[in-house]
């Protein structure tokens, strides 16, 4: 249940984008949305700091952990580029405190 809408099934979506066809995708941030349509709109309108060649979203809970037991994206570490840079973080990549 989210306070904002009173509607029950909002999900966190991870947002990935790349500026050029030859680039790798960067993880640029997250949005919270009730359905994939709105997740796409929110991602595009929120992370508009670059003229992206391609952007994609996926529900956070669709990712499977590979080496750790915790769900991906739920541990601390360098924030995605949309929310600052690795230089802002006290912790080495992948070893932050749980969010």
């Amino acid at each position, binding site marked *: 249940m989210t306070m904002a809408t009173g509607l029950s099934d909002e999900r966190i979506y991870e947002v990935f984008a790349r500026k050029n066809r030859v680039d790798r995708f960067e993880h640029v941030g997250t949005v919270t949305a009730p*359905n994939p349509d709105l997740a*796409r709109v*929110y991602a595009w309108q929120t992370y508009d700091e670059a003229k992206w060649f391609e952007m994609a979203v996926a529900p956070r809970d669709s990712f499977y952990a590979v080496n750790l037991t915790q769900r991906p994206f739920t541990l601390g570490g360098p924030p995605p580029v949309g929310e600052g840079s690795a230089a802002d973080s006290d912790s080495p990549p992948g070893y932050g405190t749980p969010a």
Partner: protein
Amino acid sequence: MSDTKTAYKSASELSEETRNALGALLLALADNKRLLGIRYSDWILGAPSVEAGIACSAMAQDEWGHGRIVYSMLKDFGFDPHHLEHEREAEEYHSAGVLDSDGTSWPELIALNFLLDTALTVQFETLHESRFEPIHYKVRKLLDEERFHFEHGRGWTARLAETEAGREALAEAFGNAWTSCLAWFGPDDDAIATVLATEGIVSGDAAATRGRWLARVGPVLSAAGMDLAREDADGWVSDAEPNWSAWSTERRRVSTGGPDEDTLARVRGDRNRSLLID
């Protein structure tokens, strides 16, 4: 009858009748965009989520940008853009009746977002391959941005339809906006739409363009439990009939009147009048 393949490079190459018709259509598009931007901006704070507020902010900026681009084109059609943007009275605005006063609920904003914004987009699509070439690049950029407006409206319509209370609020808000949006395209024999379609300035007459809009919004409305449009053998249709006796082809609306006092002050920028630089 002119050769329908020749492209027009400027407004001065159009016949007087065509120039007046296109000028009127562009003014109505610009006015609707400007007012719609205000309605989006009302929800930047207070939308159901931070993300929805950001979306409203982006859509407001898009609408004002589109309005500004179209107002600036109108200089070539004999209009004074400064006068258009800052000096008109309510009855001189060519905006849809549903924009005359401020809505108070989120579903009302979604009705404007999904029904009216899409109606304007469908109209711009008819200009995409217009014989009037100066508009091509502008329309392409605008349509690119409008994709996300449509998806926002569609996403929220589906979202609200998930609950009983949401369906009731949707039905009321969309029902109130419906006739005003349906009327945008005009009656089948609408003077301006007919001239522009015959001249190849737009790709469809009033009936064709209205049908295109109904086909766009109809399936989403139907899935959300609203019976405003239905599909028959000829495609999506609406049984509602605007009161065409009050239709103004120039203003693209069926009601007299115009934006209320508060809306007018905001759309003209009255509070910032002293800051205007000639």
